[in-house]
């Protein structure tokens, strides 16, 4: 692989981290969904580029799945769900946006240090790509942990999964079967969560996690 190809792969991985940061920054639900679509689009581009560079045609299918399902179908479906349920469209943060972003930077630093220490023998650029993938996973977890809105927690979970896909493609050779099963499991999880959101909304008229906790009997 020439250094320009390496650099483009790196740049795409870095853009995925940047998209995760953009998701941390959003405070409106529709904007979050749009950024998630962008996230999935960048993932598709990154996987497609890896397919071209590694000459692994099955990765093109992975990229297509990412593009069609995660960048188009899922955001549109979530859009519809939000409209139908009439979910409150502003995302409440547990801690302010500034502190959340600082925590994000700390997590990126942590994942860089961990990856660069844990894999001393491997190729330098592969290690950095893995570090970026771990950062995306950790940032997805951060989104889930610092948001009060259930839909944004779902989006965080899905961006976490994107990070795992990035790690898998970077590691040169994840068989297609595993990839399809991972993608379908995400779909199932999404459908289940969607159904649950409907039921929760029916019973309690709200999907605000804090309000739901009150019904659980735990005072905050």
């Amino acid at each position, binding site marked *: 692989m020439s250094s320009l190809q390496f*650099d483009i792969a790196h740049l795409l991985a*870095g853009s995925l981290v940047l998209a995760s940061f953009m998701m941390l920054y959003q405070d409106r639900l529709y904007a979050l969904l749009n950024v998630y679509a962008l996230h999935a689009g960048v993932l598709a581009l990154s996987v497609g580029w890896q397919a071209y560079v590694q000459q692994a045609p099955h990765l093109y299918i992975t990229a297509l799945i990412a593009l069609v399902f995660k960048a188009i179908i899922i955001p549109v479906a979530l859009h519809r769900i939000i409209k139908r349920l009439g979910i409150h469209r502003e995302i409440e943060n547990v801690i302010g946006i500034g502190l959340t972003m*600082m925590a994000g*930077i700390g997590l990126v*630093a942590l994942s860089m*240090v961990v990856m660069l220490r844990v894999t001393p023998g491997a190729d330098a650029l592969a290690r*950095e790509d893995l570090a970026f993938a771990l950062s995306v996973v950790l940032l997805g977890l951060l989104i889930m942990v610092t948001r009060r809105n259930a839909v944004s927690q779902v989006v965080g979970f899905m961006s976490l999964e994107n990070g795992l896909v990035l790690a898998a493609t970077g590691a040169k050779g994840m068989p297609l079967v595993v990839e399809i099963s991972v993608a379908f499991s995400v779909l199932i999880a999404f459908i289940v969560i969607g159904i649950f959101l409907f039921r929760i909304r029916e019973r309690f008229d709200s999907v605000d996690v804090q309000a739901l906790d009150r019904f659980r009997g735990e005072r905050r």
Partner: protein
Amino acid sequence: MNELRDILSQGAQMSLVLGLAPLLTGFVRKVKARLLRRRGPPLLQPYRDLIRLMRKDVVLADNASWLFRVIPYLIFAGTWVAASLVPTFGNGLLFSWTADLIAITALLGSARFFQALAGMDVGTAFGGIGSSREVMIASLAEPAMLITAFSVAMIAGSTQLPTVAEFMGSDAVGLRVSLGMAFVALTIVALAENARIPIDNPATHLELTMVHEAMVLEYSGRHLALIDLSSQLKLLLYVSLIACVFLPWGTATADASVAWLALGALVYLGKLTVLGFLLAVFETAIAKMRVFRIPEFLGAALMLALLATLLRFVSGSL
């Protein structure tokens, strides 16, 4: 002979930035108007405005001090010196070793310091609004700019702008993640420092929505002309900075012949046109943020710049 050509080249650069600054502002205004389906003011209108203002009397508030009268010249001097040190059509600036990127940022900081003082001088509430908001924006924009300068300097191995520009134009650089993040951060900082939408509206007349305009509310005549010219110079400075660091192709190198310099000038004008157009489109497409959303926006720029620097520290190839 070489020295003479270098001195002429530096002098040409200084006059070029002074002459082009109102043209860039006029161009941006024209494009914005066209995008809104208006005809817009003529392209050369800022020049006419400056000449008109310079000929008018200065009307000073009753308790404006000597500092109020001197500050426009201080702001203009600082901004013009800083703008002369950013490579435009060629990298061979004679006096570029007097101030590097950090010093240029600090010179602009001096200008902003005095601007904020001018807002406080007359003793009305409007100046206070402008100054207090301006220092809040500066308290985040200036560190973001400095840290972006750090990350660029760590990639290029120097803080001198012509060296950085030469390095970026050469083959050694490749596509780096840190550069991408630094580019986004620098764009956000440039929008904040030049008081553009979404941070501040340069065309507003409502005092409560003003930041920069509120500080210069009491200025008139030649003082206002100098301050307007300084703002235009600052916009040109930031556009040239983005062009020379992130779009370095086509700039003449330090020892180029006159033909290459002329080509460099043409390429530079092209870059100005493109970036000015993009600025106008962006300003038309987005709405102004409310004041306390600005720190989050600038905080994001600061975090991006910090991330870029961190990546450079942790790994040399990023």
